[in-house]
């Protein structure tokens, strides 16, 4: 009886499974991956997650299929213990393994770098001097983190500060994230953006909301007893609705705006009498 060519059989099984799984991953699972499509950055992350998952799927199948194939095909038969064939090194196999894995990793590194640059940080904080800045007009909004709530300041609207975040759809927003006490992290889930809020630091994120919807805001850095309650809902609205809202806020918060410090990228509140 001809000896079974395990390598050919295994590769065939792996190829068939990969050809079935890959379209499912790309076309069925991909579109529903988090965080959604509420912004250009979020959509970019869905694409990136799909690409990474598609690249990882054949690798995962290789490992899992080999595991089960080995359990079944090379199971010890009943009877005496048999010694397996001597294992010898195979230069071609080792070279192929190193080359393929290196190509995979380096291509992922290149892909990630290009996507970060194309996405102007891809939804993450860029620090005070971003390497790449989107062209065109941007709405500046400052996110001020404090124990235990976020407030938001709009410098181009008289520096008014508000308790809720509203953004106009279709416009690039430049968020300046900072803290006036301990470290926090501003995370707007559906918009696909997250940036550390550190005292004395201006951390810039770029986001372009693409659909009118409500998004969740959470603090993503443990900041004290109420860290888990430091959340809110923000809204992406039409340009007209945004203008109406911001003018209402300017009128309502006029007393507070009078006593606010001049708009600055960071604030260092004076030590209070009791704090150390």
């Amino acid at each position, binding site marked *: 009886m001809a000896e079974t060519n395990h390598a050919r059989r295994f590769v065939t099984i792996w190829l068939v499974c990969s050809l079935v799984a890959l379209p499912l991953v790309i076309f069925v699972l991909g579109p529903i991956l988090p965080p959604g499509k509420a912004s250009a950055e979020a959509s970019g992350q869905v694409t990136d997650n799909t690409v990474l998952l598609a690249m990882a799927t054949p690798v995962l199948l290789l490992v899992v299929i080999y595991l089960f194939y080995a359990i079944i095909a090379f199971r010890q038969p009943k009877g005496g213990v048999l010694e397996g064939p001597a294992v010898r090194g195979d230069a071609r196999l080792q070279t192929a393994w190193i080359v393929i894995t290196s190509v995979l990793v380096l291509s992922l590194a290149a892909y990630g770098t290009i996507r970060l640059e194309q996405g102007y940080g891809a939804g993450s904080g860029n620090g005070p001097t971003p390497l790449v800045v989107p062209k065109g007009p941007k709405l500046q909004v400052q996110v*001020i983190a*404090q*124990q*235990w*709530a976020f*407030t938001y300041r709009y410098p181009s609207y008289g520096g008014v*500060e508000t*308790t809720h975040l509203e953004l106009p759809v279709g416009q690039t927003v430049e968020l300046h994230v900072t803290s*006036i*006490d*301990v470290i926090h992290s501003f995370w707007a889930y559906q918009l696909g953006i997250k940036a550390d809020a550190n005292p004395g630091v201006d951390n810039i994120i770029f986001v372009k909301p693409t659909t009118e919807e409500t998004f969740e805001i959470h603090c993503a850095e443990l900041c*004290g*007893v*109420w860290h888990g*309650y430091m959340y*809110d809902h923000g809204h992406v609205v039409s340009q007209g609705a945004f203008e109406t809202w911001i003018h209402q806020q300017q009128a*309502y*918060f006029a*007393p*507070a705006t009078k*006593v*606010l*410090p001049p708009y600055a990228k960071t604030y260092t*509140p*004076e030590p*209070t*009498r*009791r*704090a*150390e």
Partner: protein
Amino acid sequence: MSNTGRKLFGVIAAVAAVGVLIGLYVATWATSQPAIVVASAAPPSSGGSQLTLETVAAIGPKYSPSHPDWVSYLVRRNGKWVRSTVYQVPANSVVHVTIYQYDGDSGLRNPFLSQVQGTVGGTETVDGKTTRAIPPEEASHTFIIPQLGVFVPLPGVAEEAKNQCEFAPCEGTAHRTITFSFRTGKKGKYRWQCFVPCAAGFIDGFGGPMQTFGYMDGFINVV
């Protein structure tokens, strides 16, 4: 009993004992919270419910033997002051709040919080005078329920005021009287806190009483 049996019994008994200790710790200490104080009914003329609170610079050994120098809120229940920060109020109603403020000012870290928000009329009354905001440097404490949008700054007692309160309960000593009302909506548990960094001796003024239930933060249970 064999040696193995004895060892097995010993391990099971030890695991059970540790489990009981962990359970006791979680049930009695880790999940403990101050007693819930139900808001009293307000006079028929105003309707709704009434909460009477006071803020003190030092809670005193009577209310907190372990932390007598901590700043704290107290609430009036059946004519007596109790140290609790969990208040129960009815849903879809008006809550009238009176706060007797006995502490000196610390100042707000974020001056934005010096404006009253979310109260009936968008104002508070301080010593009989209605106002929409206070000078941020005069803030002693705040009563803020972020999820209900209620932000109320509380001005402090002047530094040169005579007859200042030393320990709670503070009666007949120098104080400010602040009143306001807010509306509740649907049932829920809403946290409230002070936003003034008033915890003396702690980093950024936000440790100690600022992060311990029963002193400067708690819950509003809307039922």
